[in-house]
């Protein structure tokens, strides 16, 4: 079946070509920003909308393939659009629609020349991610993967005049390439010695358990580096805050998910077997990432760094889901694997929406106040009501609160955890529910982090006088934020439709769907396994709470009164209070620093009781950096130092080296 003339895959290719054209045209508008903000970005948003529609359509279709006669001679690009690709295209389209709309407003104050280049990189980035989801051979996959890494590197270093941003970009590029090396080797192992580098021939090949394990571990390493999995996460909190906010939203919302896509593709599509301990390993690393991310998020003082650490947490939760899926699938428990996979994909989709929303919200705050430091914000709900209300939706969704979307995916994941007692492995049985406890700890701490984030930025009194002049976001920005907020609400209220849409994906990866059992009670009640086992109805939930709220409000007015008087805050009668007496970001993170002290490397400067000018400072550093990265960096420097010994800069010595090498080679080749 086709939409009029075109197959969905053709439409996706047209969208990619359209994005590339938009990107290539943008640098020509170097006199004014108008063409890019007024035409290119809205057109790009339309293309995202089309991608969303094409993806939704393709979700219900059997896989399609195409061959593009591009690339090297005799090595064309193979493309394939199956339900898994379609799902990730939906994620990309849905999230980038809002982000591009927002960009149309956000970039209006940029220098025209800089914006033209940025728009080129932005659209290359979008197109390369869509290509990754379509790639059906290792060659195109790696080309698109590198294109994504490079375009995002240039986006991160948009403000390359700042030294820290250049350093962040370098770290990002380095780890991206170490990861890419892992992926390349993984494809090498999968390819073995036979056939070509198409995914089709990899699917056809069978691996011994040993080589399958090698391939899986390489994939986990390579994709984990891109996803920000522990201990390969160090680039993430540096690179995300460095980029302009819409780019952070794209990177966190969509780019991290390309790694999840790759991991799922290799594990469930290209490999034939799964071994249970792969799942346990992924689950463990996921839990570590989740806990690490959320604890570090709690002690941050920069809005965007806080969100970046929270991305590590969410990627951790997604990896926990991947681990559970592998575990269940390795034991041939189809329905449970489908449940865990659905929860994983659902969370990936949710994260794209709420994290995108919050990154864009910080962008608006940054534009309105010029401030990213939580300690200098406050009270913005009065000055920026639109951004405040829409961000509240994102905050509640990310804190995993019903009836929004973050809750649904965490709920599904906990249901999957509760079904592990049927795993035929006594030790795992005991460990897995405790892992569920750790997951709950991570998501409950996320609520702490978000109360801190929202409370300090938007509530309370302005901590700086100039915040009084902050202005609300423009209409384009509001439209982008509103779209993502709407996504959070709809994905939260109608989970059954999402599960039904995911049916084909789980069918194709773990040969089992959830649609039949999940919708057994109609769209109103979500019943993932059976109604007696568990059910949840967000619409009902919201309905009852709203009804009670309205009835209570009316009853209070009817039986009593609505009289109201405004006065100064009471605060236990303390007379001399000012805005600086509110909790700072450091203060709000203090309990976490104290309770989880061993997790942080802290340097504190405490004033004594007799200081004339007391000064308090605390800085929190990542132990991984000192324990893992710094030794590797030192080792690399020492090795390069050794190589430096033979480097003199004298031509006759170099000729001698060449001569010696030649002799040595002759000795062996002879």
């Amino acid at each position, binding site marked *: 079946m086709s939409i009029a003339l075109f197959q969905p895959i053709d439409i996706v290719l047209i969208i990619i070509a359209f994005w590339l054209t938009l990107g290539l045209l943008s640098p020509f508008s170097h006199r004014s920003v108008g063409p890019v903000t007024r035409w290119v970005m809205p057109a790009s948003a339309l293309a995202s909308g089309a991608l969303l529609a094409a993806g939704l359509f393709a979700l219900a279709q059997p896989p399609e393939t195409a061959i593009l006669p591009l690339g090297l001679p005799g090595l064309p690009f193979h493309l394939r659009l199956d339900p898994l690709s379609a799902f990730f295209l939906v994620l990309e389209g849905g999230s980038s629609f809002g982000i591009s709309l927002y960009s149309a407003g956000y970039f209006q104050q940029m220098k025209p020349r800089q914006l033209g280049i940025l728009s080129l990189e932005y659209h290359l980035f979008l197109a390369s991610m869509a290509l990754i989801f379509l790639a059906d051979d290792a060659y195109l996959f790696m080309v698109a993967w590198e294109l994504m890494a490079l375009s995002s590197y240039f986006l991160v270093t948009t403000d390359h005049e700042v030294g820290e941003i250049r350093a962040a970009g370098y770290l990002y590029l380095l780890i991206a390439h170490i990861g890419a090396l892992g992926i390349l080797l993984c494809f090498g192992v999968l390819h073995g010695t036979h056939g070509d580098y198409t995914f089709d021939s990899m699917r056809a090949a069978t691996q011994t358990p040993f080589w399958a394990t090698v391939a899986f571990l390489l994939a986990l390493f390579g994709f984990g580096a891109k996803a920000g999995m522990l201990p390969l996460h160090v680039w993430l909190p540096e690179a995300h805050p460095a980029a302009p906010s819409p780019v952070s939203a794209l990177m966190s919302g969509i780019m991290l998910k390309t790694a999840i896509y790759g991991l799922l593709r290799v594990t469930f599509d290209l490999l034939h077997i799964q071994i249970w301990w792969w799942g346990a390993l992924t689950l463990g690393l996921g839990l570590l990432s989740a806990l690490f991310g959320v604890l570090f998020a709690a002690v941050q003082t920069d809005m965007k760094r806080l969100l970046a650490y929270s991305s590590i947490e969410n990627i951790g939760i997604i990896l926990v889901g991947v681990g559970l899926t592998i575990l269940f699938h390795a034991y041939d428990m189809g329905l449970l694997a489908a449940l865990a996979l659905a929860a994983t994909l659902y969370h990936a989709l949710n994260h794209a929406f709420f994290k995108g929303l919050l990154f864009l919200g910080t962008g608006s705050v940054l534009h309105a106040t010029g401030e990213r430091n939580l300690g200098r914000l406050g009270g913005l709900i009065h000055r920026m009501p639109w951004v405040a209300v829409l961000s509240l939706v994102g905050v509640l969704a990310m804190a995993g*609160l019903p009836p929004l979307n973050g809750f649904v995916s965490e709920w599904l994941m906990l249901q999957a955890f509760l079904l592990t007692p049927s795993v035929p492995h006594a030790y795992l*049985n005991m460990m897995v529910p405790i892992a569920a406890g750790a997951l709950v*700890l991570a998501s409950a701490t996320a609520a702490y982090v978000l109360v801190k984030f929202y*409370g300090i930025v938007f509530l309370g009194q302005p901590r700086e006088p100039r915040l009084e002049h902050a202005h609300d976001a423009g209409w384009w920005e509001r439209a982008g934020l509103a779209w993502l907020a709407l996504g959070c609400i709809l994905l939260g209220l109608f989970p059954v439709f999402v599960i039904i849409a995911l049916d084909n994906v789980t069918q194709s990866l773990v040969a089992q769907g959830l649609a039949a059992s999940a919708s057994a*009670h109609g769209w109103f009640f979500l019943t993932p396994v059976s109604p007696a086992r568990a059910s949840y*109805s967000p619409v009902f939930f919201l309905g009852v709470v709203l009804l009670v709220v309205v009835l209570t409000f009316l009853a*209070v007015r009817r039986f009593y009164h609505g*009289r109201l008087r405004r006065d100064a805050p009471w605060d236990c009668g303390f007379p001399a209070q000012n805005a600086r007496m509110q909790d700072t970001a450091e203060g709000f993170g203090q309990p976490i620093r104290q309770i989880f002290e061993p997790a942080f490397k802290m340097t504190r400067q405490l004033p004594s009781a007799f200081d004339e000018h007391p000064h308090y400072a605390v800085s929190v550093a990542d132990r991984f950096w000192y324990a893992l990265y710094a030794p590797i960096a030192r080792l690399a420097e020492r090795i390069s130092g050794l190589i430096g010994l033979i480097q003199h800069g004298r031509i006759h010595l170099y000729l001698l080296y060449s001569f010696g090498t030649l002799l040595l080679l002759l000795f062996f080749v002879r």
Partner: protein
Amino acid sequence: MTHTTGILFQLAQSVGVVLLAPLWLGWVNQWRAWLQNGTGPGVLQPYRTMGKLFAKDAVLAHNASPLFRATPYILFGCMWLAAAIVPILATDLPFAPAADVIALVGVFALARVFMALAAMDVGTAFGSLGARREMLVAFLAEPALLMVFFNASLISHSTSLTTIVGVLAHRQFAIYPGMAFSGVAFVMVLLAENARIPVDNPATHLELTMIHEAMILEYSARHLALIEWASALKLLTYTAIGIALFLPWGIAPAGDWGALPLSLALLALKLCVLGAALAGLETLSAKVRIFRAPEFLGTAFLLGVLGMLNYFLIGA
């Protein structure tokens, strides 16, 4: 039984619980007064306080936002929903499929996050202090609470509260060994989540130690009344969950309307005894420092885990 009578019963339960929650709080306070050699204001005191508060004019800080005004109503709505889905008298609740135990934890979390945000809204020193402490206690208590619920779910193969209670009540006057550990853990979580001693003291207004009271300092009149009412409702709902999980005997099974009078009498008895016990517990223990709270809740979590390990070791 028709569907209509079920819904009528559901409405009766939720309205009844909402109306009686302050009475039970009064009962607990009265017992505490007696145990501490006081006379006590009588069990009806919470109603009198709320009546007075509703009649007063509300005073709002100059910079209070709409979020601040909406929070008491949202809090009340969340607690109403929680009270409606816990099987208190009978396991036959038409509203119950809307939310299982995990969603129930979610309702409490939603209410708590709004409360903490409202506390930070005016921007006073005590408000943000209270919000921070409340969220601290909450993120430590939530895993422990879910361990308790997971243990019950593992035994009953369900996270739906009505099914759990149905399975647990089936065993006459005996309790699953793992549930004994969970019971202790649950009591500890109940104390922490409802701002009772030893984590918080509902009777204190000593600035440096308060948690819940610090958050509601800026509220007055009808807003304060609704918050107090919601707190009473939360305490009663938590106790009802405890009764449903650990003392479920006598609850009316689905469709058995003849069992209701007995169920009601037993419930009243259980609540009377538990209220006195709660007051006794509070009288006997002292409030701990805020940074001892993680140890307290860590113990609760470990007890919950032990209960669950019990399930895996002996299968019950």
